[in-house]
């Protein structure tokens, strides 16, 4: 559940965007690509890059389903509800544009049921165009692959083969604002959690020092630990050097915790139970770190990891499962690229 005291008035107005470009509203996929790449949004935005990749992958083929995801890839985040409160009209305009570009496929707006109250205005406006689907659990269902599986009756589907396109609400908001203002976004909403302060949302300039963002929010970070994108799958930021990025959805400050030492795996199996993509993190860890004689898992399974971090989070032995799998995945991808291109990356 998000903070119950979170009100629209707590979110400051958006700052002025950059100088408006002069491209017209896109009407087909090629124009949409150009719009996304050059005009509407920064190309470093991960969700926009994902949308561009989806358009490239699907090409001219028919889109069978358009999923607008109000879920967040960051577990602590309520970005869907925040975007809906910031500008529901811009979101609906963006949804209409995307649907038009993809020849009006069946559109599904997926949201978390606990956000229903905050999403009320958006749901009312989008009801005419989209079918609404409320989910109880939003993390890690927000990952496009998991979402495609959930919305396809829990079948193992390939979103590209099935013609499923998914777009998140933040991309819709930024795209809608770009359409309205004909301007390139230079800020994004960020949620800030700090010890002793009410959680808040601010518009953070991309490229600004994270330290300054806290000061802008009236918080002195001091000697605190800063974590971007939550405790499950987030990363620690160095406050003296870190700069704001498009993919930072939440910033949390807390006292430096007492580190817990990792110990041997007790084979409780919780990581296997919790994995949303049905891999065996403990076995992958064993084959990566312990070099056990019997290969308990196919190392290629690490390619299926979506970095949700659930396995590391619940591990009673505090093993770095997620990091280990990511390391293994990078190694395999490096080998694949080397084998294909004959040169290193």
């Amino acid at each position, binding site marked *: 559940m998000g903070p119950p005291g979170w009100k629209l008035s707590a979110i400051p107005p958006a700052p002025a965007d950059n100088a408006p470009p002069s491209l017209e509203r896109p009407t087909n996929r090629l124009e949409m690509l150009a719009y996304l790449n050059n005009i509407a949004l920064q190309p470093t935005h991960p969700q926009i890059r994902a949308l561009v990749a989806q358009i490239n992958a699907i090409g001219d083929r028919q889109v069978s389903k358009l999923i607008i995801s109000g879920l967040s890839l960051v577990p602590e985040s309520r970005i869907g509800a925040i975007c809906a409160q910031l500008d529901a009209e811009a979101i609906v305009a963006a949804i209409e544009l995307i649907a038009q570009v993809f020849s009006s496929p069946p559109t599904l707006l997926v949201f978390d049921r606990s956000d229903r109250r905050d999403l009320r205005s958006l749901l009312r406006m989008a009801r005419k165009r989209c079918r609404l689907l409320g989910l109880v659990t939003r993390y890690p269902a927000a990952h496009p692959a998991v979402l495609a599986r959930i919305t396809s009756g829990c079948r193992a589907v390939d979103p590209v083969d099935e013609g499923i396109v998914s777009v998140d609400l933040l991309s819709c908001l930024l795209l809608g604002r770009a359409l309205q203002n004909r301007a390139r976004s230079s800020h994004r909403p960020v949620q800030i959690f*700090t010890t002793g302060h009410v959680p808040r949302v601010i518009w953070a300039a991309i490229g600004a020092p994270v330290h300054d963002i806290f000061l802008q929010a009236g918080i002195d970070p001091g000697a605190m630990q800063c974590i971007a994108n939550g405790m499950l799958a987030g990363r620690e930021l160095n406050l003296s050097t870190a700069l704001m990025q498009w993919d930072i959805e939440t910033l949390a400050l807390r006292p430096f915790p007492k580190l817990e030492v990792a110990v*041997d795996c007790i084979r409780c199996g919780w990581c296997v139970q919790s994995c949303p993509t049905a891999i065996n993190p403990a076995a992958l860890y064993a084959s990566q770190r312990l070099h056990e004689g019997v290969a308990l898992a196919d190392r290629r399974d690490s390619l299926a990891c979506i970095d949700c971090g659930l396995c590391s989070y619940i591990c009673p032995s505090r093993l770095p499962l997620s990091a280990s799998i990511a390391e293994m995945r990078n190694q395999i991808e490096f080998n694949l690229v080397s084998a294909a291109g004959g040169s290193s990356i």
Partner: protein
Amino acid sequence: MTSISTTESASSANMVHRPPFLNWPVARREFYQSIMIALSLPLLWGIGIFGVRALLIIFSTVLAAVLTQVVLRRVTRRCAWMPFNHTIISAMMLAALSPESCPIWLSAAAGVVMTGLIFLAGLPGRHRVHAGLLVALLLSLAVGQSQSGPILIRDTLLVGHLTRTVTLGHYRWPRHTTVRGNDAVTLPMPDYVLSRTLRRVSDRPASQKAHNELNNAFGALLPPPPALFLGAMPGRVGVVGVLGILIGGLMLGYRNILNPAAWGMFIFFVLLGLLFGPLSAHALHHEFWQSLGGIWYLPPERAIYLLYVELFTGDFLFASVFLLAMPGTLPLNPRARWVFLLAAGLLAALFSRIALPLPPATTAILMMMPLAPWLDSILPRRSWLGDQR
């Protein structure tokens, strides 16, 4: 997805808490503590049934195990990684599976041996056989249990003179028992009565003779159903308290330490084995195919009662709750778990019917445990997302 405090008064707590969908303990210490608390319920029940003697067995086992670990920690560096919680749980399991007539010094020796085995096997998690259970089985073989001697032992310190406890609510002692001294009764072991009766009826389960045998066993030799449920019968210290086991199981299930599906599957396969297995080792040996499913030839009410008695007098409930909750028992992959539980359940039912002088379910699970890594390797879990990439 987090519970976030919105008040300034929450300043001492971190703003980002554990996500609510993870209603589980997240540290090994909490994990073991939950099992410890759940396991203490049937042990307390056993103390209530068997008196101070059971308390001394538990105390001596745990103390000996912990002291051994303390000594090992001082002597070796490797033992520093051995958690006390795991040792205590293993010792509690060992005490729970000890016969109530076990000498105290032997319980203490078993605790020492158990800790040494854990140490030698490579610390918790690395081995795939629970040392506590292994030692408990060895202890059962060493001590044995006289099949018809003075079994049910209670101490006058705790509950007074045994002959005067007949009026206590849930202790309905069989009237035929012979009191020996102040703190023991002669009561045949339910396992022994069952195996002897089933052996006699297994040749012709539908005959009048078999009917009479069963009537005799269930009417006079075995404790009545309420006494079975409340544990007022001879047995192992922590295994007789069915209600304590069930409450502990509910607690472990709530904490997600015990997988209810795994528990249900194990009990289902045990029942399957009891329903379609042979009635006795004798029948199995002589007429293999004809002996299978012998229980179906019994009158329905006798068959149902037989299943009830078998489930409650054996260690099926104890093993299905506590052994399956212990980390490291089950394979990690779901299909491997399914096969493991199937094999363990059927084996447990078979061991029960052939009157193995060991706790059947514990023995079956312990025998399957070394196979768990192999099952994991031949029945791997394939990611649905990996197939697409």
